[in-house]
């Protein structure tokens, strides 16, 4: 890193070398990058076909966790707000979708739209509170909000079926397990596309400017209140959609599915993935979704751990350890470790930027005009 006592001329030279590298990378052929991206996409699309049918629902769940990760990323990674009650938005979307499907007889697509709208409404309520309260106190409010949703909101019998739960049938076109997995992956792709374009809008950038210092954003003419609420609404909407898809994995949901530990898991996967980088958080989501299954399988096959009893019930502990490792030693999470690759795929040099914990994620401003 630059030392302020270094001869200024030397500093400029260093900068010019970096700028040259960036420009060289931008000028270089796009073909290798496109090939690698195509390869990754092909692998992802092949997974539902290749995986044992026993685990196909895990694939769906992984895609849905990825969607939730993008939702968390908008609120926590971009806008810098605390969210320890995100399971509430998932649940609200899940129950809304279930209700729309069964009680209102809506088609699946429309039910997802309802789920998104309800998620947005819930987020707007929380966002309104977040305007008055910040930092640690906001974190506490989100915890309380999550608990309130689980204990009170999701217990309202006529809306959510109370203890018995709410059914949420799958759409005819995607009712098979493999087809449903493709649906979830498809929605994840659309959500990522949306997020990518979001960061190219002035609203998306303004939201990101809120994270470090709201006063600076305000001094640049950014309406802090409006953009904070926007971040909540977008985040809630995406989480609502995830909820709708989530409800139809097992085709039944109950309030037990949306507790504090799930909210904490969502936060863990965002932090471990690398808050602020969409590719990182999606990988974090996928990791935490498959971790229980992974642990079970490894336990059966390898007995590598000192505890031969390392089954899925240890998953939260592994998650917690990953979190603590990330916070203390690898602040940028998975995304930071993949910094070089992510930078290259985004059109830059194949080099991890030493100055940034969270790598550039391409799209919006990272892309060429």
């Amino acid at each position, binding site marked *: 890193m630059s030392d302020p006592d270094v001869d200024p001329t030397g500093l400029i030279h260093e900068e010019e070398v970096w700028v040259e590298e960036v420009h060289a990378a931008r000028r270089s052929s796009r073909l290798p990058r496109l090939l690698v991206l195509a390869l990754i996409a092909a692998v992802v699309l092949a997974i539902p076909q290749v995986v044992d049918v026993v685990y196909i629902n895990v694939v769906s769940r992984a895609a849905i966790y990825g969607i939730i990760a993008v939702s968390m990323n908008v609120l926590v990674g971009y806008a810098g707000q605390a969210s*320890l009650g995100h399971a509430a938005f998932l649940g609200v979307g899940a129950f809304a979708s279930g209700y729309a499907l069964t009680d209102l007889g809506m088609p699946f697509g429309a039910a997802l739209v309802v789920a998104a709208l309800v998620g947005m409404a819930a987020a707007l309520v929380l966002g309104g509170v977040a305007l008055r*309260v910040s930092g640690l106190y906001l*974190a506490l409010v989100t*915890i*309380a909000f999550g608990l309130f949703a689980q204990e*009170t909101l999701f217990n309202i019998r006529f809306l959510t079926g109370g203890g018995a739960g709410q059914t949420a049938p799958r759409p005819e076109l995607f009712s098979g397990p493999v087809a449903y997995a493709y649906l979830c992956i498809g929605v994840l792709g659309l959500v990522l596309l949306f997020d990518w374009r979001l960061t190219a809008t002035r609203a998306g950038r303004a939201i990101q400017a809120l994270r470090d210092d709201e006063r600076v954003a305000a001094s640049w003419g950014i309406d802090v209140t409006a953009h904070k609420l926007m971040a909540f609404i977008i985040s809630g909407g995406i989480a609502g959609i995830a909820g709708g898809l989530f409800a139809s994995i097992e085709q039944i949901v109950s309030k037990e599915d949306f507790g504090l530990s799930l909210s904490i898991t969502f936060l863990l996967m965002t932090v471990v993935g690398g808050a602020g980088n969409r590719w990182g958080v999606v990988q974090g989501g996928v990791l935490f979704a498959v971790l229980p299954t992974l642990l079970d399988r490894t336990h059966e096959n390898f007995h590598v751990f000192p505890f031969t009893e390392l089954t899925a019930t240890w*998953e*939260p502990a592994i998650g917690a350890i990953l*979190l603590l490792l990330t916070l*203390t030693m690898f602040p940028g999470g998975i995304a930071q470790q993949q910094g070089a690759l992510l930078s290259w795929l985004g059109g830059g040099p194949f080099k991890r930027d030493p100055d940034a914990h969270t790598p550039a994620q391409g799209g919006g401003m990272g892309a060429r005009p």
Partner: protein
Amino acid sequence: METWIEVLVFGLQRGAIFGLVGLGLALVYKATRILNFAQGELGTVPAFTALLVMTGFETVGDKAVDRGMLIPAIVTAIAVGAVLGILLYVVVIRPLGKVSPVTSLVATAGVALLLTTIELNVFEARARRFPRPVNGGFDLPGTDIIVDWHTIVILAVLAGVALALAAFFRSAPGVALLATAEDPFAAELQGVPVERMRAMAWGAAGALGALAGILGAGVFESLTPGLVTSTFMIPAFTGVVLGGITSMVGAVVGGFALGIVSQAAIQIVTTYELDVPGPPQLAVLVVLLAVLLVRPQGLLGKSA
């Protein structure tokens, strides 16, 4: 009228546990500016340790408790709590360095999750019988209400701890501890062993947590993994916020207030046959929101 006295009695009983947990939270915050979400598990783990001592170290099955081992069990539990607190500080909090309060909250939440998972795997997800230090109760004069001796024990312990802490913070080491929180750099220059004081504060919080865990499990006469966190943490937090996050007296007052409020909520819903699910949690949430929106520094806290 009697029902309301009952509400008061139960409210004070629960509130005292909230207060004990809250004292641990306030102590850690006052001393190191960290909001310790793992404070609850700093109670459950020692409670399990006490259970182990009293059942002869059997983790499986449901062996009867040997009441003769009660005192050694309690002492062991408090020691375990203190060690766990110090360990938490040294292994997690210190390596974190200077982070925002939200980050430390998330980190301690991770620790709580870790501890709960370990408990679940070692002790299984079921309830075990847990004894009270003193059984039985007495009639509240002039009414038909029975007040458990356990309630008196909890109140007595709370009073004792509160007095001890009040005295401590007026003494030289106590003032030094406060100084390390206000201005660690200056304290260090003055020769105060900052790291040691912080570790001590966390150890004390762990010991407090252990007391809360044992007495809290005694309230239900059963112990399950994650008990203290799931039952007492949020109300304790709310009590601390209500009382003012830097005030130890506030933590106790807030804890009592929340205890009474949540019991009252249950009573109101029952009496008026309202179809409101989860009344105590709802009441706690309402209080939390009200405090944060109207007077975030709490009743006794200093203005932010």
